[in-house]
């Protein structure tokens, strides 16, 4: 089995799972209960918050545990919109964001907010100058992802942060779900006000994640109820899930340079091997994130390719899993201005630091032979 769909989700690390089981089994009390058992759980919750904060380089009051990336993005975008609409109703994002950002903005548009969707270049990159041009006096939020989930394109977050910083009314949100661990993102230094991360993309568990919210930023809550998560997110805390998330984070950042170097070298090898096949066109930028490589095989429907590879126990994907139900065309590649040959035949390989050179070599060989076979049956 060769699993190359780590941008859709990853398998949980053995140690993460063990942490989860242990905490779920032993420390099940509700941290809001005042008895010692509850206080003990509260203490562990604070401890995991502090550890997460250290790993993100922020204060522990700035870590809000969530149920995942989608919740984090919704909470950040709608939370800013509803809390600060008296300052202005204009927001800026890009045309290649994940649906959990895109759809949140669409919902706000229907409520009278005005959203600018910035274009991208052929590699999926946002131009900082476009951000500058789009900034207005009534702009209250700029939301740009750190790494694109289909292409692996790294956005100029640092530059954008510098552009937003002088606007006192505007907040800067970064969807860092795909970038976490793969690229460095110093939150304070880059002037990021809100940053979304998700557990299941980093060998953590589904249903876990966090939104980092800088101290001075107030949000209208998405979920109302008890005063959990520093009054920012109601609902009984999932301590075991949060501990597991922090564990995954720690494992991810351990020897992160080695992990990145390994993934980069896998990506280079894959790139090199793929372009040997004349029918393959690479869509990802050369200097993209180390774990994603997107390419097209024009004339072949991605579903057919995925199915053919699946028969050999090799798992890759088309575009983001969340939009897999739509017809085959990739909206992201369309936004990059690629022609329909490429937008309708895109495949995404995404690896983890656990994948090996051999696996990728097998993948390319299998891909090539499948293309050949399909070509024969299609009578070309």
């Amino acid at each position, binding site marked *: 089995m060769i699993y190359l*769909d780590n941008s859709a989700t990853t398998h949980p690390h053995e140690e993460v799972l063990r942490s989860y089981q242990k905490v779920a089994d032993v420390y099940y009390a509700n941290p809001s209960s005042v008895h010692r058992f509850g206080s003990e759980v509260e203490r562990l919750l604070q401890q995991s918050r502090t550890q997460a904060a250290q790993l993100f380089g922020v204060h522990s009051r700035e870590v809000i545990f969530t149920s995942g990336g989608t919740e984090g993005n919704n909470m950040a975008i709608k939370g800013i919109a509803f809390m600060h609409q008296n300052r202005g109703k204009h927001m800026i994002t890009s045309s290649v964001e994940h649906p959990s950002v895109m*759809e949140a903005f669409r919902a706000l548009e229907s409520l009278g907010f005005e959203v600018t969707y910035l274009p991208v270049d052929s590699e999926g990159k946002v131009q900082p100058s476009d951000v500058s041009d789009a900034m207005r006096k009534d702009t209250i939020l700029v939301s740009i992802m750190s790494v694109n989930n289909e292409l692996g394109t790294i956005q100029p977050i640092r530059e954008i942060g510098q552009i937003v910083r002088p606007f006192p009314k505007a907040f800067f949100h970064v969807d860092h779900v795909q970038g976490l661990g793969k690229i460095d993102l110093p939150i304070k230094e880059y002037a990021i006000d809100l940053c979304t991360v998700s557990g299941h993309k980093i060998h953590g568990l589904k249903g876990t994640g966090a939104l980092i919210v800088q101290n001075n930023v107030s949000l209208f809550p998405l979920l109302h*109820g008890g005063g959990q998560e520093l009054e920012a997110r*109601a609902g009984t805390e999932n301590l075991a899930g949060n501990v597991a998330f922090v564990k995954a984070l720690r494992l991810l950042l351990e020897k992160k340079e080695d992990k990145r170097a390994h993934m980069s070298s896998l990506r280079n090898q894959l790139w090199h091997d793929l372009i040997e096949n004349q029918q393959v066109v690479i869509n990802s930028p050369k200097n993209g994130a180390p774990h994603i490589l997107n390419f097209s095989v024009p004339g072949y429907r991605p579903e057919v390719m995925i199915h053919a590879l699946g028969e050999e126990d090799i798992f890759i994907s088309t575009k983001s899993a969340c939009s897999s139900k739509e017809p085959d065309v990739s909206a992201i590649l369309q936004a990059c201005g690629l022609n329909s040959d490429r937008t309708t035949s895109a495949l995404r390989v995404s690896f983890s630091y656990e994948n090996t050179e051999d696996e990728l070599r097998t993948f390319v060989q299998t891909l090539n032979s499948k293309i050949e076979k399909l070509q024969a049956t299609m009578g070309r």
Partner: protein
Amino acid sequence: MESIYLDHAATTPMHPDVIEEMVPVYKETFGNPSSVHQFGRSARRLLDQARRTTASSIGANEKEIVFTSGGTEADNLAIIGTAIANQQKGKHIITTSIEHHATLHAVESLEAQGFDVTYLPVDESGAVKTEDVQQALRDDTILVSIMMVNNETGVIQPIEEIADLMNSHQAYFHSDIVQAYGLLNINVKELPIDLLAVSGHKINGPKGVGFLYVREGTQLATLQHGGEQERKRRAGTENVPAVKGFEKAVEIITEKRTSYREAYRRYRNRFIETLKEESVNYSINGAEDKTMESIVNISFPGMNVETLLTNFDLSGVAASSGSACTAGSVEPSHVLSAMYGAEDDRTTNSIRFSFGLANNDDNVEQAAKKVSQIVHRLSD
């Protein structure tokens, strides 16, 4: 010293079979259900299966189940979702003054947006009156939200009567059944109700999962935008392992309902009998004949909640003063205030004991003896 846990209404330990059910899913079926390859498809199958099991536990159709991150999210989705989607029909909402904060704070946020909310009173029995609902209903009422079992007193509300009454009115009827689900037999084929909120961690399932029942045809706006998961009613990568654990918890409690209820009735009676035998001065809050066997809320005249809880805790009895979500700071109970008036001593001298899997005949009696000793000591 091992504490005796009498706080099951705050949260419950996971059933060992639940964890056992989850681990292999984490290890083997970790795919993203939206992925088209085999990993995705097998995850989807588990999800579909769990959806059928939970649906059939309340006589619903699987399409009517929306998995959420817990009870708070389910309540918020039900209340805010129907209010936003139906505001053209009217802006009046009816609820009660004894709801959980997940409901109360959700309707308060709607009030701030121009909705008009009626908070029905309760009498000393702790139950709302169907006539009060009838009187409060207006042509522009779009939602009635009343919990089935109160989490502080365990008092069962006349949901069937209210549902029958509402049948001829346009307003949707939502019930927070977090404390009732599993122990009470609830069937939406017989009960004309539109929405029901359930939480996993109250029935020995995992934290971070729950569901909202949404009767087919109900107009509901989404809270969390993004991918097309949960029939576009709740975006976000599905938490398949937790849902699977939840399914197991549902199966267990459905099968064991009768024996659990018998055991809890015994525990409850034993607990009260012991206080009586030990000549403790106490009174029970809420009509006893209308109370769930899993909860007993007891007032100790002349005592103070905080002193009681601290002393119980030191002697190894873990209980709460009511809703755990507000218990972190021990405030006078909003539920008891609604029953007796804010000035009544019972709002500051009452303790909630709640029974569950961590109990047996012995430890319940032991706990009651410890409680008696402490109350005697403190009244000297």
